[in-house]
């Protein structure tokens, strides 16, 4: 009699535990879907986007809908996965889309020479707002559109 009681108690506990963990799992999945398909927060820091973004860090909100539907335009600030260190995500501004002719100053600290380049198909040209301290397309070339993670719309 005692064993049956204990067994039914155990079954009740197990059912409750399962339901609670299912709820937690559902919440986590919801969070993941919103993060990946709708919008995501990010902490942007560093000197390359002064004065738009602070040196010590600004919390920004990036949406993922316009990147999925090819609606990113020149002038947008975007989150991009760095082509040099794939685990790092950087914040830069889109200067040119595919087919555009982009003129840029390669090294503003040493000379004023302009260079012109045509952005290849499927790529974008990104630059930081602070061209003196920015590691961007002037160093590593145009980046493929597939590396763009989101478009910043709120700071």
């Amino acid at each position, binding site marked *: 009699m005692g064993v049956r009681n204990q067994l039914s108690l155990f079954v009740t506990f197990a059912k409750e535990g399962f339901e609670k963990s299912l709820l937690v*799992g*559902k919440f*986590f*999945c*919801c969070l*993941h*879907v919103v993060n*990946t398909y709708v919008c995501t927060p990010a902490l942007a820091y560093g000197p390359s986007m002064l004065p738009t973004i602070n040196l010590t860090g600004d919390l920004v909100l990036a949406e993922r809908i316009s990147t999925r539907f090819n609606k990113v335009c020149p002038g947008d600030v975007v989150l991009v*996965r*760095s*082509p*040099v*260190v*794939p*685990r790092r995500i950087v914040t830069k501004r889109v200067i040119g889309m595919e087919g555009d002719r982009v003129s840029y100053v390669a090294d503003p600290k040493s000379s004023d020479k302009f260079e012109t380049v045509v952005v*290849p*198909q*499927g*790529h974008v040209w990104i630059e930081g707002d602070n061209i003196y301290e920015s590691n961007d397309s002037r160093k590593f070339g145009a*980046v*493929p*559109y*597939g*590396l763009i993670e989101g478009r910043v719309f709120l700071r």
Partner: protein
Amino acid sequence: MCRCILGEISNMAAHNFLWSLTKNCFTFGLIGLTVSDRYASIVPVRGSSMSPTFNPTTDSFMGSLSDDHVLMEKFCLQKYKFSHGDVIVFCSPSNHKEKHVKRIIGLPGDWIGTPMTNDVVKVPNGHCWVEGDNPSSSLDSRSFGPIPLGLVKGRVTHILWPPQRVRHVERKNHQNRHSPS
């Protein structure tokens, strides 16, 4: 009046059933989407650029039913750590909506020899050199150069369909690569 009440109760029961069915479908869809985004998913392989590893026969009669379907795992994206000979799925650098399946031949720092132009290319930091197993019909790094590792979407581990070809996908080494060591 009894029949009225019975009708209303059966209506409510059907309504409740539909509602709970929708909720269950939504939950499973959400969980499935999360798992396929973060852990593993199944992708079809189109084209013959990876023959004989995938799609060894060009069977235009059956069409997409006879395409190999493979298991792609995403755990490798946590550290972006790949090995030579891994088969990966990546977004095409010229069209981000297309996905390609190729084998990694070179990792950052490797020198790759291209027999076509008699050139030797060094794979830059954060990039990799990919080639298809069937060099005659493969659009790969020999045309568009090394690709950033950030474009990689997953690593292929097993073939799941058709049932007679279910097996583990092995790493294969390439003779054209010279590693610094």
